[in-house]
């Protein structure tokens, strides 16, 4: 009889082609694995299965808007998970505003939740939250006196450098320079040559795109830079380690995702993920999974997949145990998450200590 019940449809809007395709793919895989875990347990709301409907936003706001409209109007989904790039998220949130529950995942732009639309939630920590944690560690544990930055030219990158300039100055680490690069650059030798000439103790790499990140890490080694590499927050994933080769060995990073954590739902999810997909479970996938997880549980608790006021209220009213640990939402829908410090050891991501 459970089979007859209509599924709960969740839209997964992510970049599946173009520059962000790989990261989008990881996210969707993470969501699928989590949906599978939940469905195997018998679904939610008395036996309704979760059905994911995927949309490609190509990383552009226009496609993101179209996808959201299509999800709502044409496919009549129950809830939406999407907005991986901040620009897409900003466009999408206007379309879904006050109409449907919309969980944004990886976008880190403060504006996304600034206005606090009533059905809008964001899981990822903002870059400010990340850098607070990370800078403490850099100041305390890393023996560096000066840092140079190579940074993606967008709000995320710009904000990150600004934060670090302040935070690192407070513990007397000198910021020797910064180079911005663009989203479609493939060669960083020019910038790295310049940074290397400044002779910093460490180079901080701000990269959110796996392939660009890997290229930068490799090229740092190729310019024969001998100092420390600091990897940007939230971006460590197995593929990056595989691609970057020896360059990443021993490098630290802060992340919401620590694959060696003992959380049982994380383990379940990872097992399912490895069974279904050939990629390794990653941070970005775990965020997708977390979105499905909290939506499923909240709908279940609220007793409906369509009563958005109730679902939103439920989400904000309590703490949730998720695969990434316990989280709660602010009034504006921003999640408060655990931030872990991780390190690459023998090509594995291992957690070093747990932050706030």
């Amino acid at each position, binding site marked *: 009889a459970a089979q007859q019940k209509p599924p709960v449809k969740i839209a997964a809007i992510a970049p*599946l082609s173009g520059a962000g395709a*790989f990261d989008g793919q990881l996210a969707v895989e993470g969501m699928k694995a989590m949906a599978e875990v939940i469905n195997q347990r018998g679904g939610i709301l008395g036996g309704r299965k979760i059905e994911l409907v995927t949309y490609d936003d190509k990383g552009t706001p226009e496609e993101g808007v179209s996808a959201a409209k299509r999800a709502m109007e044409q496919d009549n989904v129950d809830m939406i998970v999407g907005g991986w790039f901040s620009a897409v998220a900003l466009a999408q949130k206007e379309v879904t505003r006050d109409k449907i529950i919309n969980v944004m995942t990886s976008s880190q732009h403060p504006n996304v939740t600034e206005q606090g639309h009533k059905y809008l939630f964001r899981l990822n920590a903002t870059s400010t939250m990340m850098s607070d944690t990370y800078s403490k560690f850099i100041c305390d544990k890393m023996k560096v006196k000066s840092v140079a930055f190579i940074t993606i030219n967008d709000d995320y990158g710009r904000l990150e450098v600004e934060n670090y300039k302040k935070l690192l100055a407070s513990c007397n680490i000198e910021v020797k320079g910064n180079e*911005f690069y663009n989203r479609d*650059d493939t060669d960083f030798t020019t910038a790295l*040559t310049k940074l290397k000439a400044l002779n910093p103790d460490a180079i901080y790499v701000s990269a959110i795109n796996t392939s660009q990140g890997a290229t930068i890490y490799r090229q740092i080694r190729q*310019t024969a830079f001998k100092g420390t590499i600091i990897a940007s927050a939230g971006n460590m994933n197995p593929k990056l380690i595989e691609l970057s080769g020896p360059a990443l060995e021993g490098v630290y990073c802060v992340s919401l995702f620590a694959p060696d954590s003992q959380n049982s739902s994380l383990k379940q999810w990872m097992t399912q993920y490895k069974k279904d997909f050939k990629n390794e479970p990653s941070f970005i996938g775990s965020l997708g999974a977390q979105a499905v997880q909290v939506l499923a549980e909240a709908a279940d608790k609220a007793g409906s997949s369509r009563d958005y006021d109730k679902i939103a209220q439920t989400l904000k009213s309590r703490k949730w145990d998720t695969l990434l640990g316990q989280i709660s939402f602010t009034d504006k829908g921003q999640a408060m998450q655990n931030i872990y410090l991780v390190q690459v050891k023998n090509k594995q991501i291992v957690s070093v200590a747990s932050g706030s």
Partner: protein
Amino acid sequence: MDFIVLGQQIINGLVNGMGYVLIATGLTLVFGVLRIVNFAHGEFYMLGAFLTYYALTLFGVDYVAAALLATIAVAGLGIGANRFFFRPLRKEHEFTILLSSLGLSLLIANGAEELFGADPKYVMSPYADEASEIGPFVVTEQRLIVFAAAAVVMAGVYWFIRYTRMGKMMQATAQNPEGAALTGINTDFVHGYTFALACGLAALAGALVAPTAMLFPTVGSWAVLKGFIVVVMGGLGSVTGALLGGLLLGVVESLGGGYISLGFKDAIGYAIIIAVLLWRPQGLFSVSRSTR
């Protein structure tokens, strides 16, 4: 100290520029001989890199053999591409042919995304991470190989076009296809040959440059843009122009990125070609100079 940075940036620029040269040479040949502005050229670069990757990982051959295999395979694909996408349109308007190449480009790029997957790949070359220090300068062996191999290939291409019979047949076909046919030149064969050569050069560029960065199915669009800029700057149809234009663009980008702003690198490259074209609309080397 400053001279070291300057020198290093020029070296970086020359190496990148040599990559552009290889890409642009094929593009300029196809334009010169077939009058086609081939948007799909970058995809052959991409295929060259991917086939190298698969030859390395699936067949386990060594890097050099993989690069050669990929080059030959893509040259073959080039013949097919010409046969199906360009030959039927030989008499059509240039914009129609351009659209066909745009379609081919989308087809290959999206097909590759489907076939090869979206995950970035890395072409492992034994020379990629070996930094050799030449005096105060650091260059990886891979980059030296890119430069040297491209230089040898370019010399070969130049000699081939100028002095061999096939080269002269290509020139004749370029300048007057109907006259060439009436002289007894099999122009279809020359066209196919030119395409194979052009695609082979693009693939070789892909195989050589791939180990310096990550590989993903959309690199083609980057490659073809650089190729276009170089070709137009050097002079459409001119091989010498492609050589000098490519090196110039590489160095200008590197210095611009190094001394002004990395983010403006591309814009500075474009500013240079705008300046060049306004000064010499036919490019640094017009067709007539080079084919002579």
